[in-house]
């Protein structure tokens, strides 16, 4: 029997008070693809970063090919034959592809010979694995799919036998993802060992040989893929049976609330991010926007929320909202009864160092009920916060605790409470349940549906198709800054939407 390619024994790691990995052990056989799944924040990236020497474990042992190996830094990992493609790429943006690949793996003190040599090897690798990239393009000139290839090539150039990929398909379209899996298959056939982190059960089922499940820093199970099912894995992931559909009555759409026509955005670098969007959201309905991350959904939310300017026209209840200049900022949007739960609550929706009560006023800090003469009425804000915390079951219900000291789900509840309780005409809500535990997911979903049933319009952006399918009434798919098509949720399925997400246009709805 051959020794496992990787064996981790009792790995623990904490970041200050956060225990990211607790006594984790895992073993991966050589020449296999091993999947790792788990909710956001479960500790997957941390574990792999430890294996790659990026973080140092507090406790535990690493065995590579049957030998105990110290991996104090990435150099050691590379020497041990490990390569890793991080969730967030580690590339030098204004270097060329070639320079990125040789960085750290140069032979000799002079650059030119290394680059010449690397160019040759790169050509061979590209031919062998269908990984074509232009070695002289700068990283900031190529797309994310290309950048991922560069990362994979970096590992192969360093002759990695063990390849770790952290959520590689999050930024890829389905066809790109398919190609990736073909390449992985070929690598496996050559005897390389691959660890694949993903949230997508379908990818696990299709591509892996074995799969491990992580929950809250612990390894809950390792099973053969052939001996499990998506439902089983989901249960292992969240620790109990998962409710796949939200209970809700059919929508009763009313008059149009939000009408978007020919909306365009050109970013600072001159790239067109939105290429003429037309959308309508009616009162009493939830319109979901599906799509692979980075296809313009964030920009759409930002321009609607008043965080950036654009061209075209948007009307709210028939009245035009300015898209740039005076009156186009987020404050004006709030005044027009548009509420916005942003995609990234920690970066945008909250000030992490502010107390909960300050965050409750955040964005509405000019509201008359929060003022007393020239000063802010802190007492009123605190009382209001307490009421909202109670209603949304925020734990602990302490307005004086800083936002960063709440758990992700409770942070999200603070944001959702702040926005929904304003009783807006239009709610923009992005990734409402990202990194939120299952109990909070159900609660938040219910709040959204309730708001709809009060006859409000809701625009929901999510990269989780499942969430869209269970929550939205209508769905529009975005690809490359355009709407590929709209569907009634009840009349479509994952497969059709997946094709549209890949840029294959469906017939207009």
């Amino acid at each position: 029997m051959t020794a496992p390619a990787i064996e981790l024994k009792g790995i623990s790691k904490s970041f200050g008070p956060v225990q990211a990995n607790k006594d984790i052990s895992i073993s991966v056989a050589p020449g296999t693809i091993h999947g790792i799944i788990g909710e956001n924040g479960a500790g997957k990236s941390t574990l792999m970063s430890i294996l790659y020497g990026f973080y140092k474990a507090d406790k535990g042992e690493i065995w590579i090919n049957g030998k105990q190996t110290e991996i104090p830094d990435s150099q050691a990992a590379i020497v041990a034959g490990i390569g890793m493609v991080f969730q967030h790429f580690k590339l030098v943006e204004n270097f060329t592809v070639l320079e990125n690949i040789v960085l750290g793996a140069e032979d000799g003190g002079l650059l030119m010979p290394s680059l010449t040599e690397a160019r040759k090897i790169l050509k061979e690798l590209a031919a062998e694995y269908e990984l074509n990239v232009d070695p002289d393009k700068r990283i900031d000139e190529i797309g994310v799919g290309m950048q991922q290839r560069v990362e994979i090539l970096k590992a192969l150039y360093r002759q990695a036998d063990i390849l770790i990929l952290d959520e590689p398909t999050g930024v890829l379209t389905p066809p790109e993802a398919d190609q990736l899996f073909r390449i992985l298959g070929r690598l496996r056939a050559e005897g390389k060992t691959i660890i694949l982190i993903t949230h997508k059960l379908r990818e696990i089922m299709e591509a892996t040989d074995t799969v491990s499940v992580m929950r809250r820093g612990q390894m809950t199970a390792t099973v053969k893929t052939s001996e499990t099912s998506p439902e089983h894995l989901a249960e292992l992931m969240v620790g109990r049976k998962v409710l796949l559909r939200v209970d809700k009555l059919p929508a009763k759409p009313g008059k149009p609330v939000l009408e978007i026509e020919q909306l365009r955005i050109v970013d600072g670098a001159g790239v067109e991010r939105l290429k003429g969007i037309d959308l309508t959201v009616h009162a009493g309905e939830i319109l979901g926007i599906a799509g692979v991350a980075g296809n313009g959904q964030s920009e759409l939310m930002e321009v609607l929320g008043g965080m950036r300017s654009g061209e075209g026209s948007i009307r709210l209840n028939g009245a035009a909202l300015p898209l740039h200049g005076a009156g186009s900022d987020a404050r004006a949007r709030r005044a027009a009864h548009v509420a916005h739960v942003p995609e990234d609550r920690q970066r945008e929706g909250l000030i992490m160092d502010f107390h909960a009560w300050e965050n409750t006023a955040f964005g509405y800090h000019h509201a008359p009920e929060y003022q007393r003469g020239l000063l802010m009425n802190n007492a009123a804000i605190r009382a209001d916060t307490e009421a909202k915390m109670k209603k949304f079951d925020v734990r602990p219900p302490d307005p004086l605790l800083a936002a960063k000291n709440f758990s992700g789900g409770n942070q999200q509840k603070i944001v959702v409470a702040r926005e929904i309780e304003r009783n807006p005409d239009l709610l923009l809500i992005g990734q409402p349940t990202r990194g939120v535990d299952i109990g909070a997911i159900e609660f938040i979903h219910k709040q959204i549906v309730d708001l709809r049933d009060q006859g409000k319009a809701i625009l929901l952006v999510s990269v989780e198709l499942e969430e869209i399918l269970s929550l939205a009434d209508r769905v529009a798919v975005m690809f490359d800054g355009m709407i590929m098509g709209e569907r009634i949720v009840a009349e479509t399925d994952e497969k059709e939407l997946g094709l549209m997400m890949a840029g294959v246009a469906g017939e207009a709805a």
Partner: protein
Amino acid sequence: MEKMPKWADVVLIPLISLMLAAGLSALVILAIGEDPVAAVKLMVDGALGSSYGWGYTLYYATNFMFTGLAVAVAAHAGLFNIGGEGQAMLGGLGVAVICLFIPWPHWTLALLFACLGAGLFGAAWAAIPAYLQAKRGSHIVITTIMFNFIAAAVLNYVLVNVLKPASSMDPASARFSETVHLPTLHELLAPLGIAFSKSAPANVSLLVAVFACLAVWLLIWRTSLGFEIRAFGRSEAGARYAGISPVKITIIAMMISGALAGMMATNNVMGEAERLVLNATEGAGFIGIAVALMGRNHPFGVFLAAILFGFLYQGGAELALWTKIPRELIVVIQALVILFTGALDNMVRIPLEKIFLAFRKEPS
């Protein structure tokens, strides 16, 4: 969960940093062959042992309160205003213009307008780097440094070519008229029957500075503008989400900061020298950095730290007067305070956090 209780952050860390700085300073004094204990005694005596000493300590402290507040307000907006020196110089120009060219009937009125003039000049000098940062992305630290030098050149030019009276040799403005003379603590306290040294320069600007501390506290923690400044300082993306204009807040915060730095001139130019001289600021703009760091950007902390530095300054002047220790000792102490409370903060913080974490873990 917090890594460490708030009091440790606000009190313990600055205290330990200060002790480290003090310890090293003592070593420096030892190294140049002097007795640190005697030096400290002399400093305490000279700075706090008499109303004369207090008068100077408070005079310096007034300067540092203004510049410390200036750094603190900018810091709340996430901006490092290293240009307090230049803004204070321009503030001096503002005061000189107000005092020289307008015949004031009474000092109260003059002070009011001097505050305005100084604030306006200081704010204007800060507004340009702020605008360039907000609109054109120029690094504000570099631009404010550059503006310090430009301010020095401007002041130099104005003093030599414009304000210098024809008959005079030194590059300084004419003396202000008697009517704009600000009452010193001696004059203020005499009616209350309190005897205070006649020759110490601490004056009514001290009250302006204390009032400024209060006003800044209100502004930062009690007004929606302060709320926006703090929010922007913590997260620019968050600010944009909340409808807080980064451009507007950057410019406003820097202008408030510049105005505060400029208002220092009511103390040193109007209250003390009663004319504008070259280098009137004597580096107070830079000391503001140390003061704000020590005071954790809180007005009350700034108030305390300003008095500490006022003490250091007056004590240091006494040292230079009565011993062989050069005045530069204060510069070294100032450097060490900035180093430990600012740059080497983590050196104290990380072990402390570990200790607190260990204590918390054990019971559970």
